[in-house]
């Protein structure tokens, strides 16, 4: 009976062979997982912090005004880039590239161009010079406004980690890791601010804004400047050295009001909000009734990927029915959006919209306090299309925030494409 369990004598190493194999397997498995983890961590932290302002180089416009100055600034910017970066900025002016924009914090997954977070200080300064040359210089509009909105997004980046509530452990929730896959830009940059706590991976912050030239910047031919990120999509199109279109232009902001580092209160979309409110409150009760649309709006109607989808029938109150003073208020509403483009381009566009003013309609929905979800105003003319809507806050959930879009029925993207 003792025999049954007697083991044969054998060389000791052989006995341990099985154990050795098992140990090796465990070690390899561990190494595999460790490597994979290391790669993941690398993705999340391997970014640059290059959003601080740098000293502006000597006049990149070479003293030229208007589009000529812009082309000079664009070329100066391109000269600071390596070939790979140039390829990110200089893309075809195709319909596919043109319509690929979004108002969402989806970084480079939903818009073309080079990420500002990917640029070094000199390159960033050159990029900003391009934007200054391309956009309007009015106080509270144009570049001034764009800067404030980008700054608001840095605030979102700082404040969203605790309040988006998406959970902070990336592996805890499968849907969170799904979102995370949208986070890194193709270029792999993770700029200042973080990605909303890692859970929701909403890419807030000034590093996630993208600059693109569709077509080659020049004084001949057609090209478009695209600049966008969360709450922003700028498209300005040039033909033979003249700006011909400043739309589509999406503009939004959260929070609508904040205090900057110097203790100043910044209301980055005050220009638009004030003009909208002034027009709405100028309407008599009867005019309001005519202007009020039957529908409710939770966002802009003709947003991204809705190119050419304007309602066939114009709704609301026709501007021809309004007083002279009210007509001016309508123009005042249109102006801050159009002033996104340089002064010459904006003036040309305003001339068109003023001429078509009597065939333009003003529509309202929700309230006219512009402080509640669904408060909405729309301008719909033969050419111009503007929507302004209040939406519940995403990060600051006890406040509303603004979503707006400016389009032109025939001039979006320079009228280059048919939808």
């Amino acid at each position: 009976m003792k025999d049954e369990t007697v083991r044969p004598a054998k060389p000791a190493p052989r006995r341990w062979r099985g154990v050795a194999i098992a140990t090796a397997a465990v070690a390899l498995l561990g190494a595999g997982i460790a490597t994979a983890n290391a790669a993941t961590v690398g993705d999340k932290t391997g970014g640059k912090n290059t959003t601080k302002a740098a000293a502006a180089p000597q006049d990149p416009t070479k003293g030229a005004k208007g589009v000529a100055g812009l082309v000079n600034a664009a070329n100066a910017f391109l000269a600071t880039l390596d070939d790979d970066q140039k390829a990110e900025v200089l893309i075809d002016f195709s319909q596919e590239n043109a319509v690929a924009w979004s108002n969402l914090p989806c970084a480079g997954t939903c818009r073309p161009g080079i990420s500002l977070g990917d640029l070094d200080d000199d390159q960033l300064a050159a990029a900003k010079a391009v934007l200054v040359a391309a956009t309007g210089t009015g106080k509270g509009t144009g570049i001034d406004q764009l800067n404030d909105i980008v700054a608001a997004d840095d605030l979102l980046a700082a404040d969203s980690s605790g309040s988006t509530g998406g959970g902070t452990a990336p592996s805890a929730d499968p849907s969170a890791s799904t979102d995370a896959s949208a986070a890194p830009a193709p270029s792999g940059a993770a700029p200042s601010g973080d990605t909303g706590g890692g859970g929701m991976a909403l890419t807030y912050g000034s590093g996630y804004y993208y600059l693109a030239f569709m077509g080659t910047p020049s004084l001949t031919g057609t090209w478009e400047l695209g600049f966008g990120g969360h709450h922003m999509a700028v498209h300005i199109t040039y033909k033979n050295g003249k700006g011909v279109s400043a739309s589509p232009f999406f503009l939004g902001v959260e929070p609508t009001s904040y205090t900057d580092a110097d203790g100043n209160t910044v209301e980055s979309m005050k220009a638009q909000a004030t003009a909208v409110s002034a027009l709405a409150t100028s309407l008599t009760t009867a005019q309001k009734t005519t202007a009020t649309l039957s529908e409710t709006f939770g966002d802009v109607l003709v947003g991204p990927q809705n190119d050419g989808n304007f309602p066939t029938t114009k709704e609301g109150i026709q501007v021809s029915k309004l007083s002279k003073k009210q007509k001016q208020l309508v123009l005042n509403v249109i102006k801050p959006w159009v002033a996104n483009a340089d002064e010459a381009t904006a003036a040309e566009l305003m001339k068109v919209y003023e001429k078509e003013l009597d065939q333009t309609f003003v529509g309202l929905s929700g309230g006219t306090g512009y402080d509640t979800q669904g408060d909405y105003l729309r301008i719909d003319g033969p050419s111009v299309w503007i929507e302004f809507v209040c939406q519940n806050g995403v990060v600051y959930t006890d406040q509303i925030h603004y979503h707006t879009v400016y389009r032109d029925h025939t001039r979006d993207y320079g009228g280059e494409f048919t939808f």
Partner: protein
Amino acid sequence: MYKTRILRLLAGIAVAVPAALLLGASPASAHPMPHSVVLLDVHETSVTAELEIPLGDLTAASKIDDVTGQEDALRAYLTAHIKPVTTDGRPWSVSVGDISVTEAEQTSTGPYQELDATAVLTPPAGADIRHFTFDYDVVVHQVVTHTVLVSVRQDWATGKLAEDDDSATQVGTIKIDVRSMTVPALEVNLESGSTWSGFVAMVKLGGNHILEGTDHLLFLLILLLPAPLLAAGGRWREIAGARTAVARIGKTTLAFTIGHSVALAVSAFTHLDIPAWPVESFIAASILVGAIHAIRPIFPGREAAVAGFFGLGHGMAFSFVLAEMQLSTGRLALSLFGFNLGIELVQLFLVALALPAIVVVARSRYGRVFRITGASVTGVAATGWLIARLGVDNPVARAADSVGTHTTGMLIALTVAAIASLAWTYADRRNRVVPPPAPAKSSAPSGKSSAPSGKSSVAARKPKSPALAGAATEPAASVVTEPAASVVTKPAASATAEPEDEEPTGE
């Protein structure tokens, strides 16, 4: 040679598994405002639509401000805006059931409240359930920026049995056509299904269920753990022959299968509505009993009967999966067969995978330590489960549950153990057989008669079963070769230390 191949294979697994986990995530489209979700479960004669509607937009559209106490008004509103029709224009009937309000959050929306409702959509007699016009404009008729995502969550005939919402297949989006400011109806054309795809999906579901349900597998394995041992005087004492062990494992597995199959069939067909917690607790208790038995024999030789008895409880738990799917009787019969087949196939595979390790480890010097440790850990896990299922959440149960989600790791561990055990046995046997083969063979019959005679329990049971007696031949023969071998390789006298470790200790 084979070793390097194994190492290469394992290295491949070590790299592939984490890679697969990392690449599994797919990008999701983000929406600035919460959208509605409609999840369709396509049955044989009706479609169940589960609705998830953001409350803010619903209030704006329905003008029903306070949801509580307004269920009837909400049902009326929903019914007025959900109008499926046949392809030739005949209306389906719609009945809205349960309504509740929950917290929700979508990508980049922030948290918000949503209304959850269930609607049963039934086509007129004889109409095609797989092709219809889904005229749905809840919320969208008023809040024109709202979007509705329509997906199929369950469709038995195409083999889609998804138990979670995330794997639903999108069939379309309902939103306003801005140019005309109207809401076009969604044409639903489901791909044609077949009984075969439904059946195959059920087989897969059964396989996955046993693979992910740690408790079922654990019960079986813990019962098999002492299979190679013989009990005497209330302790596990001696090592049974390998064939005896295999036969016992086979019998226990078969009895468990019969037990849970019977219970599954009965509870599925009679639509027994048993609450889950007593059944789940019974299962936890069964594991605990198995673990105790693995440490001290409490029902030696009756493992099969015990497996059959507790199998009944496990079968009832399996039936919960089928009950959730709300299948018609015809499909239920087929599903039952497929589901059970999947369970058996995977169970058989896993038992086969665990078998070499169970047999080899029991005969090694680590057998006792392994058995006691394994049974203790299992016992602790089972106790944790039992307490949790009786209503007291505890970290032990949570830890034990999380093991079940690492199926790949479990499989790799089992595979490695099986390979190591087989390699050990192979190396062992080669070492033994090489020396003088002749005397070993000739002495086999005598060894056969002498070896078992000293054992109380096996000797007593053996005459009952000729098959078992035959099964004992082989291990007995190998037993005899062992002393012969040890005599030849005399210098390695240290080998005698090994049996000393094992033999007298028992339990």
